[in-house]
Structure formats: C-alpha cells, structure tokens
C-alpha cells in the first residue's frame, strides 16, 4: 500500500510538468483569436470616402472588417499586409475607430487605401457592440455573421493559421 501511495505522490509533479510542457509549447496557440459566431449588430454610420450613411444592408455578403485608426501604430505595421490582401482580391473593409475624419482621410491618402468601404465610428458604439477592445482587430464576416475575430496585428502567419481554415471551410472569397 505504501509503494502505491508513493507512486501517486511521485506522479503528481510529473503530470504537472507534462501538462504545462504541453500547454506552453503548443504551436497553434493564438490567444487573440476567437471563433464565436454572432450576428453583426445593427448600425448606421457614415462612410468615410462618400460621406453617406451606411448600414449593414450596404455591407457585402463576404467581408473582412478591419478595425483601425490613424493613432494606432500597430495598424501602420499591419497596413502593408492589408494592401497585399486587397491586391489579391480579398474584400478588405475598414472600421475607423475613435478617429477624427480628417486624420483618417489623410492617413489613407498618405499610405494607400486597401479598404472597399470605411465606417467612421467616432464614438466607438459599433465597435463596443462587436466586442472590440482596441485597434487593430479584424473580423471575418459572412452574411452578417461573424465567423472569426482576431485581436492584434494580422500578418501572413496569422492569416494562414487563423483565417485560412475558416475561409476554406466556408468557401469564402472564391
């Protein structure tokens, strides 16, 4: 009986080490990714370039919605990859978050505009309703349902590992 108890006591730290080794060395661990599906909340915002009202009915069936702002440094780093995506024909669209309209327009003129449309969310109301905690964040939307939500910079690695499986699974961007 005593040896049995000793074995159990010895197993506890070994199992603990194995557990943490497993968790900490996981390659496909993306804490910024969330795959909870939810409906895009109803909204009515101004579109940045046309200066006209925009609701979810104007949004296409398949959208990659990127939350950005001119004050956001990581967005500047992410910008190059978004340009590449838009050149590949991915319908990249923007949610301009807590930004002055003039600053946002200037930013797009200066660095280039990868976005098909840009919602101007000055108060951050739609962003709050979608669970945005800051910029940049990116949503993959199909027929008004969010399929993937990534908090942080999207780059080739994140695109391949987080977004591509969902895109292939749902036959998006064909």
């Amino acid at each position: 009986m005593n040896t049995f108890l000793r074995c159990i006591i010895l197993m506890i730290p070994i199992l603990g080490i194995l557990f943490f080794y497993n968790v900490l060395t996981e390659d496909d661990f993306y804490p910024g990714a969330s795959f909870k599906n939810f409906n895009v909340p109803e909204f009515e915002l101004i579109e940045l370039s046309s200066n006209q009202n925009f609701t979810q009915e104007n949004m296409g069936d398949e959208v990659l919605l990127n939350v950005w702002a001119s004050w956001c440094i990581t967005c500047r780093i992410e910008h190059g990859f978004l340009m590449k995506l838009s050149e590949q024909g991915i319908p990249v669209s923007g949610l301009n978050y807590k930004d002055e309209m003039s600053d946002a327009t200037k930013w797009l003129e200066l660095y280039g505009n990868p976005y098909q449309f840009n919602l101007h969310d000055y108060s951050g109301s739609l962003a709050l309703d979608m669970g945005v905690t800051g910029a940049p964040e990116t949503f993959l939307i199909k027929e008004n349902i969010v399929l993937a939500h990534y908090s942080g910079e999207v780059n080739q690695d994140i695109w391949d590992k987080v977004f591509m499986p969902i895109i292939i699974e749902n036959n998006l961007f064909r």
Partner: protein
Amino acid sequence: MKILLLISILLISLTSNSSEVYTFNSQVDEQRFYKLIHEVRCPKCTSGSIASSNAPVSEDLKQKIADLINQGYSDKQIKQYAKDRFGSEVLYSPEINSSTYVLWFGPFIFLVIILLIFFFRRKI
C-alpha cells in the same frame, strides 16, 4: 471686471474638460451602476475593474452600462451583455456552471482527498 471674466473663463474650461457624468433616474440605479462597474473587468487591462480604468473601451462600457440601466435592464442582463461581447473572463466572480465546477469545488475535493490519505496512513 477683468478678474470676473478670467474666473468665468476658468470655470467654463474646467466643466468642458471634465470626464463623463452619468445621470440616473433614481438613487438605487446609481448604486447599481457603481456596484456593476466594480464587478466588470476592463477588457483591455491586465487586471482591474472598469471603475478603475480610463481606457477608451472602459469609458465606453461604463457609458453603455449607464445607458442600459436607464433603459431598464437588470443586473443579470447587463452582465450577460458584457459577457457576450468580451467573454466570461470579463466578470470578476466566475459563474457556477459545468465549465467552472473544477474551479469552484476543486480545492475542496482536493482537501478531502488529502485528509482521507492522511487518516488512512495513520491507521496503518
């Protein structure tokens, strides 16, 4: 006269720069608000309630909670609103459900096992 003008300018500039002021229908609602903002975690900070945070998203969430209280939402519905958007970790005290049983009762179960082993050993 000049001094009066200066004072009034100072007063006006102070009020226009002050942070958000929340208005409620009743004293009870106001107390509910202050209780709730201490129970909701700031989604952007490492640890801290939205009451202690001035991150943009916390300011928005506080304003939203104030709005929802004025619209007649219950505390439970408001917590659900936050949870739906920012995940269950946004609430300071985790709810008791099948995924949190281990969290809530694990330590007690562990204690019982240890005690059992302890008494078992003494008998031998």
